């Protein structure tokens, strides 16, 4: 505690006297000193600025998700200013003439108004939708990276669980948001969700009527309820879990791929400030830019073309958003099994794909780190990542699972596929009932085989470097690696600790030089 009472710079003066004595006091020093006297932020703050983030591109996948979430929050706040979460009926007399005089819910009318009457409203509405699709997509890709590189192993099991929870919460919240405009397509989705709730044995009918405020479509409370879940409760939980996710990441430090100078005991990469900060902030802008451009250029969910939801109306080719596709696909290819007896009915054809299957999926995902520990007996801490090819069995299982969910996803568009390829719908459905199981097995076996083959080859996956054949004086031939490529050169350097002080930046350092002139010296 004694150091914090003195100024921040003097606390470490005993150890870095040389550079400190030359250091001129700047306005930052005095401002920071004021704050540090009161909160003691200098040391922790600097340690945070020195924090190392490994630079591998695949470590940015989670950031796509994070920044999509930022976009979702920002655009979502905008939308709440204009969206009316009410099932109360109104008659539309707005800009879009084909719906003039049509009776609809306030929710639908306000969504159409956002699309036509609010300036930039349509772009932001579409951006919100694209961001949701990209959010969940990037979570999935990020999760694949974690899985295939074994980043979920000890000590990161808890963070894996948080991440899986985020995936499922994001899917649920995506579905809720998709349902809010109360258009014909989303209303049909709500109808199916109601039937899924209803299918749960014992409590289904209670759950369904409680959630909907009565037998479908209920007393009109489903829209406001979905709304508050969508804009407050789930985002708060998601934001909290993202906070926990990042806290654990900082606390445990990032994993890294094995490589020059990288060990289990260090983290090699760029410091938080300024390198990582500049890159990642730029990345935030780029993600936002892509989403904004999608929002303005690619039409998504043109609800005005659908009309309001009416329980006895229906459109063909109704699919949920892509992240629900695996569930819809499972619903479609499920055989028509229903148990009826003893005065009760269990609609397995809905309960299995709609409740049990996602339930088991989430349990399997959550417990995967422990399942793998059990199977491999590996309970050691790991900070260096696996190359997927070095773990053929895990990689094969993962690829098979991906194939399984991808086939289910494709099965959710049986009608579109049948129409596009002009095949009978029945043939397509039966095909999917088989390929959903066959394709993953084939994919898994192939992956396993490929991994085994790759482990036999050295240097596979590394950047190629030319090899010089040198003839010695005695006539002996040897091979020598050439110089690294210029861009790769810095991988060859030994990693150094982030310097506390840089001499020579001001030009009055030990080496002298022109004051205020930045000198860039090329490496020899």
């Amino acid at each position, binding site marked *: 505690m004694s150091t914090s009472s003195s100024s921040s710079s003097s606390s470490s003066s005993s150890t870095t006297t040389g550079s400190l004595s030359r250091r001129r006091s700047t306005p930052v020093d005095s401002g920071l000193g004021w704050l540090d006297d009161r909160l003691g932020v200098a040391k922790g703050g600097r340690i945070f600025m020195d924090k190392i983030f490994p630079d591998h591109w695949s470590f940015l996948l989670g950031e796509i998700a994070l920044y999509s979430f930022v976009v979702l929050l920002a655009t979502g706040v905008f939308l709440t200013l204009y969206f009316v979460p009410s099932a109360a009926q109104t008659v539309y007399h707005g800009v879009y003439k084909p719906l003039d005089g049509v009776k609809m819910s306030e929710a639908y009318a306000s969504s159409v108004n956002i699309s036509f009457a609010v300036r930039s409203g349509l772009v932001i509405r579409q951006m919100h939708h694209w961001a949701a699709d990209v959010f969940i997509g990037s979570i999935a890709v990020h999760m694949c990276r974690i899985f295939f590189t074994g980043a979920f192993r000890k000590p990161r099991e808890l963070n894996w669980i948080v991440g899986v929870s985020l995936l499922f919460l994001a899917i649920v919240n995506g579905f809720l948001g998709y349902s809010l405009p109360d258009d014909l397509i989303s209303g049909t989705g709500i109808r199916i969700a109601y039937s899924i709730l209803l299918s749960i044995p014992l409590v289904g009918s209670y759950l369904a009527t409680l959630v909907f405020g009565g037998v479908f479509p209920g007393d009109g409370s489903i829209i406001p309820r979905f709304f508050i879940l969508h804009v407050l409760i789930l985002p708060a939980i998601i934001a909290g879990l993202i906070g926990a996710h990042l806290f654990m990441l900082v606390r445990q430090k990032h994993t890294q791929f094995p490589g020059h100078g990288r060990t289990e005991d260090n983290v090699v990469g760029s410091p938080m400030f300024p390198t990582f900060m500049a890159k990642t902030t730029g990345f935030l802008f780029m993600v936002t830019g892509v989403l904004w451009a999608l929002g303005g250029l690619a039409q998504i969910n043109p609800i005005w073309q659908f009309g309001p939801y009416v329980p006895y109306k229906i459109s063909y*080719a109704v699919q949920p958003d892509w992240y629900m596709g695996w569930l819809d696909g499972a619903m479609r290819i499920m055989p028509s099994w229903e148990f009826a007896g003893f005065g009760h009915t269990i609609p397995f054809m809905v309960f299995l794909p709609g409740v049990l299957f996602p339930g088991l999926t989430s349990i399997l995902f959550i417990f995967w780190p422990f399942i793998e520990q059990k199977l491999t007996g590996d309970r050691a801490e790991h900070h260096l990542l696996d190359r997927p090819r070095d773990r053929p069995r895990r990689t094969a299982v993962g690829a098979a699972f991906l194939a399984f969910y991808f086939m289910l996803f494709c099965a959710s568009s049986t009608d579109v596929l049948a*129409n596009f390829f002009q095949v009978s719908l029945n043939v397509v459905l039966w095909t999917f009932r088989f390929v959903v199981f066959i394709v993953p097995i084939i994919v898994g076996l192939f992956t396993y085989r490929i991994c085994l083959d790759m482990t036999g080859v050295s240097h596979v996956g590394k950047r190629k470097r030319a090899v010089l054949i040198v003839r010695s004086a005695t006539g002996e031939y040897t091979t020598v690696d050439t110089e690294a490529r210029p861009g790769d050169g810095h991988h060859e350097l030994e990693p150094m600790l982030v310097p506390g002080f840089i001499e020579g930046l001001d030009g009055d350092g030990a080496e002298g030089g022109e004051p205020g002139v930045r000198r860039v010296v090329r490496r020899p």
Partner: protein
Amino acid sequence: MATVRRTMHVRYLLPAAVVAAVGLGGLLTSLSAGASTRSRAPSGTHAIAAPTPPIRYVGNFTPAQVHEGQVLFEANCSSCHGTQAEGSAVAPDLQGLGPATVDFWVSTGRMPLADASVQATRKPARFDNQQATAIAAYVASLAPTAQGFPSGIPYVDTQAGSLSMGNRLFVLNCAACHTITGAGDALAEGAYAPSLHVATSTQVAEAVRTGPGNMPVFGPGTLSNAQVADIVAYVTGPIQHPNDRGGIGLGGIGPVAEGFVALLIGVGGIMLIAFWLGERA
């Protein structure tokens, strides 16, 4: 119709190009033009009550038309349907089906058909409108039109139709098969509901009234002439020329196409950026 689509694209592509190339000054001028087109777009779709009937059924054909039809029929249709359109083992009896039925099948190119075992597909029509009408006239002349089929070829006053009424009727009666955007989709056992994007107003009305193939028949007891006109106005209006205010329409097949864009362009594109930004080793 093509020009309408074209101007829609030009409306946003032109200013977009200006943004990229010229910059701010040019942008402002092009935009004021763009803005005025936009404000004009929704008007003109308003329904105005017309004194003329919403649909005229034209069933009085001249002997010349009947004769022309007979020549065409005997040359192109009689090998399957028989010279008196009485039908055969491979083709149905056409007597009594009325001119609208015949006109629909011929004018949409579904007839003549090479292979009777599959659902007839819309293809470039072999006969022009006048010839199709003539064939219809000939077949209609062979037998009185049976009850339930329109006695003439319907000509729809689409200006009289109400778009909002058409929207409601379309969603209730048509969208279950043809989809909400009119893109069409596969039905059971190899049948399919065709896309509505190229149908003419007369063909839509004919299909509604005669129920070609697996399509249900919507007679006057189910839909009045005014209601059919509403549906036709909606199909030839917002369905065939959707207000794709949000940008590229992605084929109107909904979340399937949207998912691919989100994953390939959204996630995939941003991953490419990440691939550039990060390191590869």
